[in-house]
C-alpha cells in the first residue's frame, strides 16, 4: 500500500489529467467501509514493527523532491506552475471546509480531499539531544524562538532525541532557521533537522465522525460524574466499541489522541483517569494530557508494560496527587522502594499516594537533599505522672552523684542491680587517653595497652556498684543539657535514658565530658529502684558544649541553677544532714535564703517549731 501511494504521488507530477482523477478515486475508497478498514489494518501492522518504513518513506520523499529540482528544462516549467496553483486551491478548500464542517455532509467529502492534500505537505522535525537535557525546557525554547507559532503533531521523545511533525512549509522553514541557535546548559549548540515527510501516523488514521461519536458514547458509560472519574481500563475490549469494529489500542497515537480530544470536550472537570491494563509500553501519546486535562489529580497506569520510570517525564506538567504504577516492568528496576519513591517524586513532587500507599513526610521528600526527621529534645511516651517521677528521680540521683559522698546512692539501687561503664578508646586520640582516671584498678592499669576498642566494667549488687561509682572522678552535671527518653514502660518496669554533659572536678585539669545513661527501674508506689544501669562516657565536640549552654533550661528545672558550685553542693549536703530534709528541699531552702547558711538554718528551725513543714519534705 505504501509503495502504491508513492507511485501515485510520483505519477501526479507528470500527468495533469491523471492527477485530477486520483482524488476522485480516493473519495470512492473512503466511502467503502471494507476498504477503509483494510487500510487501517495495514497501518496497524506497520506500527507494530520498526520505524524503518517511515524512514524509507522519508527518503523516498527526498528523492522525489530532488528529481523535480534536477529537471528544470523548458519542457517541465509549465508543470511547476500548475503545482503551485493546486497548492493555493488546497489552502482555500481547507479554510472553507473548516468553517462549515459540521453543517453539510457534502463538505465532509471535501474535507477528506484536503486530508489527501495534507498527505503531501508534511515535514518531520528531529532534534538530537542527550539524555541529560530537559525535553520540556528544550521544546519551550524552540517554541519561543520560532517565528511562526505551531503545534507539534505526533510528538515523540526518548533519551536521545525529540521528533515531531508540522503540517506546512512556513513552519518547517521557520524551524530550520533556528537550527544551532539554541544551546544547552553546557553552551553546546543544538541542531534542528527538518525534512519533507509523509503525513504522520495519527493524521493518516484519524477517526471518522461516526467513530468519534461511538467512542464518546462508550466513554460516557465509563464516566463517574460524582467522582469526576473516567475508567478506561481494558478499553480495547469494551463491548460497545468491539461491536462497532472500533479497535481502541491506546498505544496507537490516533486512538489516544481521539480519547484525549473527547476528554477535553466532554469531561472538562476530569480528576481521575484509569488507564490500567491497556498494554501501554510508552507514554508519547499521553503527552497532550498535560494540556487537555491539566486539572487531573489521580492517574492509574498499573498493569501496563512501561519499562523505565523515564516515561513519566513526558507528563511532568501534571500535578498528580495519586499515581498507580504497580504491575509495570519499571517497578522491578529499583533496588528498594525508597529509591523507587524518590524517582517518582522527581516527576510529581506533590504526590501523596503511590500505588495506593500513603507517602510519609511529603514536606521532607519535597526537598532536593533528603533530610532526616528532625530530632526532638525530650519525649515522654508515658503519662504526666511518670514524667514527674523521672524528673524527680534524676534531680535526686545527680545531686547525690555530684556530692562528695556518693554513699546515699545505696538507697536507690536494688540489691541485685548491675552496672556497666563503657568508654571509647582510640590510641591515636590523645584526649581520650585522659579517660584512664576511670580505671583505678591496678590490673586494669597494667593491661591498659591491650585495650583496642573499648573497656567495659560490669558490677553486680548495689554495694559493688556504689563502691565503683565512688571511685569515679568528682562531677558537676549540667541539668540544662539533659535529654531524657522514656524508651519502654510496663506496669512494674520503666526503661529511660539520659544524655548530657558534666564537668569533671578534682582532676589535674577540669574538663567537660558527654555521657549517656540508661536506667531500668522497678516502679514502686512512690519510689524507683534501679536494677540496670549502663553508663557511656565520651569527649563531647565543641559544638555540643556551645549548644548545650545556649539551650534554655526546661521549666521543670526552673528551681535549680544550671550548675551548682562545689561550695554550694557541700552546703546542700550538710543542710540535708542536719535538718533531715531531702536534698531537693534543702537546696530550695538555701536558694530562698540566697545561700546564707545561718539564715536558712534559722528559718528552718522557726518553721519546724511551728510545724509548718510537710512530712514529705523529710527523708523516710
Amino acid at each position, binding site marked *: 500500500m505504501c509503495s502504491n501511494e508513492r507511485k501515485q504521488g510520483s505519477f501526479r507530477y507528470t500527468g495533469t489529467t491523471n492527477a485530477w482523477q486520483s482524488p476522485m478515486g480516493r473519495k470512492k475508497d473512503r466511502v467503502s467501509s471494507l476498504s477503509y478498514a483494510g487500510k487501517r489494518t495495514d497501518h496497524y501492522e506497520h506500527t507494530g514493527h520498526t520505524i524503518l518504513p517511515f524512514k524509507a518513506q522519508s527518503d523516498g520523499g527526498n528523492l522525489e523532491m530532488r528529481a523535480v529540482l534536477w529537471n528544470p528544462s523548458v519542457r517541465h516549467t509549465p508543470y511547476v506552475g500548475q503545482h503551485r496553483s493546486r497548492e493555493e486551491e488546497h489552502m482555500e478548500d481547507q479554510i472553507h471546509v473548516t468553517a462549515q464542517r459540521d453543517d453539510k455532509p457534502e463538505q465532509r467529502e471535501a474535507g477528506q480531499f484536503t486530508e489527501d492534500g495534507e498527505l503531501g505537505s508534511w515535514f518531520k522535525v528531529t532534534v538530537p539531544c542527550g539524555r541529560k537535557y530537559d525535553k520540556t525546557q528544550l521544546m519551550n525554547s524552540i517554541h519561543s524562538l520560532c517565528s511562526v507559532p505551531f503545534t507539534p503533531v505526533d510528538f515523540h521523545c526518548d533519551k536521545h532525541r525529540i521528533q515531531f511533525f508540522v503540517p506546512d512549509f512556513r513552519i518547517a522553514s521557520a524551524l530550520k532557521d533556528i537550527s544551532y541557535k539554541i544551546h544547552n546548559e553546557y553552551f553546546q549548540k543544538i541542531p534542528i533537522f527538518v525534512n519533507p515527510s509523509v503525513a504522520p501516523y495519527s493524521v493518516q488514521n484519524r477517526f471518522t465522525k461516526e467513530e468519534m461519536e461511538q467512542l464518546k458514547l462508550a466513554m460516557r458509560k465509563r464516566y463517574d460524574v460524582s467522582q469526576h472519574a473516567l475508567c478506561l481500563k481494558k478499553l480495547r475490549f469494551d463491548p460497545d466499541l468491539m461491536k462497532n469494529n472500533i479497535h481502541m489500542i491506546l498505544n496507537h497515537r490516533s486512538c489516544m489522541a481521539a480519547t484525549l480530544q473527547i476528554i477535553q470536550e466532554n469531561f472538562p472537570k476530569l480528576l481521575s483517569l484509569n488507564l490500567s491494563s491497556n498494554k501501554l509500553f510508552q507514554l508519547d501519546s499521553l503527552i497532550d494530557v498535560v494540556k487537555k486535562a491539566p486539572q487531573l489529580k489521580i492517574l492509574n497506569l498499573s498493569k501496563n508494560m512501561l519499562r523505565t520510570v523515564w516515561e513519566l517525564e513526558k507528563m511532568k506538567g501534571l500535578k498528580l496527587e495519586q499515581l498507580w504504577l504497580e504491575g509495570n516492568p519499571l517497578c522491578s528496576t529499583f533496588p*528498594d*522502594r*525508597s*529509591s523507587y*519513591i524518590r524517582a517518582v517524586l522527581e516527576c510529581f513532587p506533590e504526590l501523596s499516594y503511590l500505588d495506593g500507599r*500513603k*507517602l*510519609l*513526610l511529603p514536606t521532607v*521528600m519535597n526537598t532536593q*537533599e*533528603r*533530610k*532526616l*526527621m*528532625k*530530632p*526532638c*529534645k525530650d*519525649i515522654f*511516651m508515658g503519662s504526666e505522672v511518670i514524667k514527674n517521677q523521672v524528673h524527680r528521680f534524676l534531680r535526686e540521683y545527680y545531686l547525690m552523684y555530684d556530692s562528695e559522698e556518693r554513699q546515699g546512692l545505696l538507697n536507690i539501687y*536494688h540489691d*541485685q*542491680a*548491675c552496672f*556497666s561503664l*563503657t568508654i*571509647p578508646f582510640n590510641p591515636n586520640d590523645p584526649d581520650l587517653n585522659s579517660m584512664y582516671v576511670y580505671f583505678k584498678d591496678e590490673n586494669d592499669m597494667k593491661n591498659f595497652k591491650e585495650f583496642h*576498642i*573499648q573497656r*567495659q566494667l*560490669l558490677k*553486680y549488687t548495689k554495694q559493688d556498684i556504689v563502691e565503683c561509682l565512688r571511685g569515679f572522678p568528682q562531677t558537676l552535671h549540667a541539668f540544662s543539657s539533659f*535529654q531524657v*527518653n522514656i*524508651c*519502654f514502660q*510496663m506496669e*512494674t*518496669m520503666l*526503661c529511660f*535514658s539520659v*544524655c548530657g554533659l558534666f564537668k569533671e572536678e578534682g582532676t589535674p585539669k577540669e574538663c567537660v565530658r*558527654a555521657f*549517656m545513661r*540508661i536506667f*531500668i*527501674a*522497678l516502679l514502686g508506689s512512690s519510689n524507683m529502684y534501679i*536494677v*540496670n544501669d*549502663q553508663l*557511656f562516657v*565520651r569527649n563531647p*565536640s565543641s*559544638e*555540643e558544649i556551645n*549548644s*548545650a549552654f545556649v*539551650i534554655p533550661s526546661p521549666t521543670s528545672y526552673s528551681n535549680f541553677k544550671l550548675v551548682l558550685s562545689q561550695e554550694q553542693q557541700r552546703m546542700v549536703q550538710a543542710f540535708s544532714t542536719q535538718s533531715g530534709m531531702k536534698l531537693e528541699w534543702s537546696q530550695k531552702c538555701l536558694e530562698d535564703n540566697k545561700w546564707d547558711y545561718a539564715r536558712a538554718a534559722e528559718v528552718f528551725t522557726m518553721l519546724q517549731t511551728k510545724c509548718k513543714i510537710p512530712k514529705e519534705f523529710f527523708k523516710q
Partner: protein
Amino acid sequence: MALAVNFKTYVDQACRAAEEFVNIYYETMDKRRHALVRLYLDKATLIWNGNVVTGLEALANFFEMLPSSEFQINMLDCQPVHEQATQCQTTVLVVTSGVVKFDGNKQHFFNQNFLLTAQSTPNSTVWKIASDCFRFQDWASI
C-alpha cells in the same frame, strides 16, 4: 555465691545474644532494609531522635522512607535485665555506639539501645526487639 553464679550465666547468655543480634540488625538495616521490620515485636516502639514510631505498620513505613544507610559500630555493651522488672520474660539490654552515614546527609555519631526479649520456639530461642531508642550524639547541631 549462688546468686553470683546465676548472674554470670545470665551475663554470658546476654553477651552471646547481643553480639549475634547486633551483627544481624545492622547488616539488615544497610543491605536488606525491607526485612528489618521482622526483627521487631508486634507492639514494639522505636524512638528515633526523639520521634516516636509505634507498631509494625508504622515501623515499616518509617524504614521505607529512611535514606539508605552505612553503619559502623564502635561500641557494644549488654546487660541481662532483672527478672523482677520483666515479669519473668527473659530480656536483655543492648547498647551500641558508632558512626552512621545516611544517603544525602553528612556522617553522624550515634547511640542506640535495644530491649530484646526471648521468644521461645521449638528449635531455638529467637530474640525480638521490644524497644529501640536511637539518637545522634550531635543532635543539637542538625
